[in-house]
Each structure stands twice: as structure tokens, then as C-alpha cells.
């Protein structure tokens, strides 16, 4: 049997990559929909729900490049980054339900979750604060002479905060190994971009700090994958930080309690047509000869996984009130 041609190999690799992307994007979409549209409405979730519906391509296209020694600081719209790092849907569900076995053991809620073992820093709710923290994670890598990198995730709103500017500037000056992923989804809660800044591209701000950047279609997972590949290569080689601005759109409100009726219908309709999951499926068919059965099978697998995780999480105990004062200090 003769070896397959290079082009065929490439196609197989691309198809496999697409399938992997699709799996994580669907898992994030379906898991968040189960949380927001079902469990939240049934009163099984404590507190609010913040989803990344429509932005799944960004954590997926980037975090797939991460290695075990890397660190990630995801935002509240990047659940797939946690999934790619090995955090399981059932841990996420137990977190949302405030259970003892959730990622923060009931100490924090919803997307405010992370895991030291999987190198994911939980969201810092003061948006933009993760930028300096990413700098410190990266500083430690540089200090030890590692070629690991930090993947930092924020949105357009974060770029209005002082921390964002302080942290980017410091990272540039210190040549720190950080890949920044910015989801520019046109809204910070209800505030449109033109009330946040006089410019259109966040990348314009980044250039002032001497950080190379590129702007990509944030709903095109393969474009993000490619940009992240370039970014990671640049950063791992010791060339300092790299910034990727992903133009995207929040397909839901800021959170479950926000109907987002401040978004013009036309704009919403325009972006709904660019759903990143449907776009990927279309490309898989047109460019990589995928069979639509793959989509049906993937979705079925994802839903089964979620059903199982929900059942597990619902059976988990709540934290013991007697532990309320535990873990404030190592010892006193």
C-alpha cells in the first residue's frame, strides 16, 4: 500500500481538527444552554448565569494550542477553555449549583471558577484585573527559563480599565510570554462600543504598548486557531506578548436576567447568521467533505455527557455550614 499523499494527510489532519473544535464548541454551547435555559429556570442554579453563546470559537481555537505547563486566565465567556484543560462538565454543574464538590466548593458561583491543578485561574470579577495577573504567571515562567505561555482572555469592556493598560505595558516592557485573546463583542453589558471608546479596533490600543497584534473573525474557529498558532510560536520563542482581537458578538444578554433589548434587531439578525458552530459545520461539509451524520453524532454524544453530568451534580451534597470559616488562611 502506498503512503497517502501530503495533501490527503493535511486534509485528514484538518478534518480531525475540525471535529475536535466542533466537539468543544458544541459541548460549551449545549452545557451553557442546559444551565441557562433549563436548570436556571427550574431554580436548580444558584445566582446568575453568564454565557458565551456565539463566542465559542475563541476559547476553542486558542486553548487547543495550550500545553500542560501553560496557564490560562479565561473570562466568563470562555467555558470551553476550561473543558479543553480537562475540567469536566459535572464539576462545572456542581459549581453552578453551589455544591460541595463544585470547583470552588460553594465558595464562589457560576463562571467564577478555575482549577490550580489544570492551570486555570478563576475569573477575577473586576474585569481586566486578569491582565496583570497573567503577567505574573508569565514572569514566573520566564524566571525559571521555561518556554510555557499564558493564555489571557478578556473582552472589549476590559480595555477601559486601568489594569488592562498597566498590565499590557508591563508585559511588553518585561517581554513576558503571554497570548492575549480579546473578544470584542461590541457590548460591555449594555454599553455599546462607541460609548466605551473613540476607536473601532482594540488592537489600536495595543500597538501603543509595542505589542504585535492581529484582528481575526472571532466567529471563525479555524481563523482563531491559525492566529493562535502564530501567536504561540512568537511567544514561546521568547519574543514577548502577542495580542489577538477577535471580532464577535454576544448572541445572548450579558446574563440570564438580561434580555438585551438594547441591541438593534438588525445587528442581532446579522450576527445570528454568523453562528460560529453553524459556520464551522458548513465549512466542514464544503471544504473537508464531512458527512452531516458527524454533526448529529457529536451532538448526541455531547447531550448524553451533559445528562450524565447533570444527574451527578444534582446528587451532590451542599457544603457543610460548619466549614464557612475554613480556608481563609493557611493557619492562624
Amino acid at each position, binding site marked *: 500500500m502506498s503512503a497517502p499523499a501530503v495533501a490527503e494527510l493535511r486534509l485528514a489532519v484538518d478534518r480531525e481538527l475540525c471535529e475536535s473544535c466542533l466537539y468543544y464548541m458544541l459541548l460549551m454551547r449545549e452545557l451553557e444552554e442546559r444551565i441557562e435555559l433549563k436548570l436556571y429556570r427550574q431554580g436548580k442554579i444558584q445566582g446568575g448565569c453568564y454565557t458565551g453563546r456565539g463566542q465559542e470559537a475563541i476559547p476553542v481555537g486558542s486553548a487547543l494550542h495550550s500545553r500542560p505547563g501553560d496557564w490560562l486566565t479565561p473570562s466568563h465567556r470562555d467555558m470551553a477553555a476550561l473543558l479543553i484543560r480537562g475540567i469536566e462538565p459535572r464539576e462545572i454543574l456542581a459549581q453552578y449549583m453551589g455544591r460541595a464538590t463544585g470547583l470552588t466548593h460553594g465558595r*464562589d458561583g457560576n463562571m467564577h471558577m478555575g482549577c490550580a491543578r489544570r492551570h486555570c485561574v478563576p475569573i477575577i470579577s473586576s474585569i481586566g484585573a486578569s491582565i*496583570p495577573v497573567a503577567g505574573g504567571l508569565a*514572569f*514566573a515562567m520566564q524566571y525559571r527559563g521555561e518556554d510555557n505561555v499564558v493564555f489571557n482572555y478578556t473582552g472589549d469592556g476590559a480595555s477601559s480599565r486601568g*489594569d488592562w493598560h498597566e*498590565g499590557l505595558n508591563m508585559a511588553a516592557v518585561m517581554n513576558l510570554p503571554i497570548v492575549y485573546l480579546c473578544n470584542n463583542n461590541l457590548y460591555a453589558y449594555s454599553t455599546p462600543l462607541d460609548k466605551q471608546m473613540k476607536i473601532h479596533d482594540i488592537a489600536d490600543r495595543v500597538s501603543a504598548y509595542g505589542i504585535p497584534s492581529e484582528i481575526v473573525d472571532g466567529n471563525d474557529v479555524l481563523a482563531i486557531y491559525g492566529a493562535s498558532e502564530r501567536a504561540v510560536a512568537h511567544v514561546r520563542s521568547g519574543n514577548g506578548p502577542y495580542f489577538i482581537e477577535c471580532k464577535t458578538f454576544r448572541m445572548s444578554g450579558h446574563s440570564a436576567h438580561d434580555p438585551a433589548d438594547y441591541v438593534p434587531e438588525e445587528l442581532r439578525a446579522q450576527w445570528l447568521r454568523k453562528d460560529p458552530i453553524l459556520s464551522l459545520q458548513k465549512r466542514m461539509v464544503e471544504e473537508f467533505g464531512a458527512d452531516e451524520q458527524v454533526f448529529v453524532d457529536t451532538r448526541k454524544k455531547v447531550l448524553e455527557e451533559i445528562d450524565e453530568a447533570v444527574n451527578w451534580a444534582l446528587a451532590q451534597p451542599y457544603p457543610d455550614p460548619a466549614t464557612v470559616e475554613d480556608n481563609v*488562611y493557611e493557619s492562624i
Partner: protein
Amino acid sequence: MAETTYVEAIRTGIWEEMERDESVFVMGEDVGIYGGAFKVTKGMVEHFGERRVVDTPLSESAIVGAGTGAAINGLRPILEMQFADFMACGFDQITNFAAKCRYRWGQAIPMVIRAPAGGNIHGGPFHSQNVEMPYVHTPGLKVVQPATSYDAKGLIKASIRDNDPVIFLEHKYLYRSVKEDLPDTDFTVPLGKSRIQRDGSDISIITYGWMVHVALEAAERLAENGISIEVLDLRTLMPLDRESILRTAKKTSKIILLHEDTLTGGLGGELAGIIAEHAFDYLDGPLVRIAAPDTPVPFSEPLEKAFLPSTDEVVNKAQWLYRF
């Protein structure tokens, strides 16, 4: 070790810990070739190199955020804030993130934030404040303020070895005004433990920082009038050494709570609360608070003098309490 000033004590403490542990590093504004605004890090960059003595941009929030990130990723940062007043610029990172990491996700933050605090140096409203209370009031942080060279060295070493974020307040008036012989041994002073600086029987003065010296001066003068003062130096403000506070309260039954910080919301109120709750039956007089008035720290000498608690004030109030 020969006569060691407070500033030298902190420097040698940091130096020894950096020699002992490769993961310890210093980061802040002007800490490198300049040696820090108060010269605490003098000579360090020459000895340890720029990798471990890191000059940063003028960005307190980024310094604290980066320190916290480095602590998450296995290092033990010592951050210098040029003045304690400017810690406010990193307040969010300190109180909303660093302080809460252990509680939220079990992540230790072994980090020291050093900050020159306090007045009596004509620093005015931006360079003289005592900013301890917002940090004392943030669960997850430890807050320390040494009064002597021995404690400065022992506490900075213990703070560096501690696995929780420590706000280390250095009194800038003490940097070069106190000195003492220090042992050559590798000693530390445990966090959370106060120290009796003077043994006495009539009145207890519970205090910390520069005010320890004011209390000792007052005690000396009061002794001439036959009044015996006990001076308890808290050393750590969070967690408080409740046991020793109650022990001295029960011993003398008359208490003065003295601090350089302003009165309302100052630590004196918390100390009064602890004593009133747990030693009320032992008290022979009212709890007396001596503190700065509720104003910004003024600049000009006569104003600053009027603002700062003085030895005279302590002597007068102690005499009044003695006669009560």
C-alpha cells in the same frame, strides 16, 4: 550583628531569605539600581541581578497583580509599594483577588507587600498615612507593623516564609531612628504574636508601630510619678493576639488604646470591642483611645505635631485614668 537600624534589619532579612530560597524575588518601583525610595533594597540588584530584583513601570495595580500571578505560579514575591498611601492604587488586586484566592480556589498566595507608612516626616497628606485598617478588615490578608529592628528583621523573614499574603507596614520615621544589636542567628518572629515591651501593673497601653516608642517614653515619665505602665506591642494587626490583649487587660484593669492612625474606624475600636466583650468584669475604668484626629495628615510642622498623638497626651490621659 552590630547596631542595626530598622531599615538595615529589613534589608538583611530580605537578603537572607533571598539567599536561602531561590523562589524569593523583589519587585517594585525604583528597587533596582536606585535601591528603593528609602534604600531598603540597596545593593540587592548588584548582588542578585535584575532577574530577582525587578524594576517596574509606575503601576501599583500591575505590580500587585503580577506578584499574585507569580505567587500562583510557584514564586514568593516581595513587592515594594513606594509609599503605603499608593497601595490604594492596587487595592482591587489586593483585596478582591490576592486575599480571596485561598478561600475561592484553595490557592496559596505567599506574597509580601512592603509599604512605608506613617508620619512625623513632614510628608503631608499623600506620604504619611496609616492605611492599615482597610487591609485589617479584609479576610485573607495578614497585616504586620514592626516597632524595633529585631522585630523588623524577624517579622519580614516570617512574612516571606508565610503562605498567605502579608501587608508589611514599615514605619518610615523608624527606618533610621531606632537601632539595636541583633543576634547573628537565623531568627524569625512569629506572625500573630504580640510582645510586652515594658512590664507594668497600673495601666496597659496597647499599641504598635512608632507609637510603641511614644508609649515607652510616656511610661518612663509616668514611672517618675509612681505610675507603672505596661506596654503591649501588637506587632501583627491581623490576626490579633487576642490572648495577650486580654491577659494585659485583666492584669492592669485600666487600658489605653494608642495608635497613630485616625480615631474613627481605627484599630482602637476593635481592641475596645474585644476587651469589652471578654474582659468587661475586670475593668476599673473606661477604655481610653488615643489616636490622630479624623483629618488627613497635615504637612506643616505645627499642624503635623498637633495631629500626631504625643508623649504629653499619653502622659496626661494616663494620669487621668490612674486617678479614675
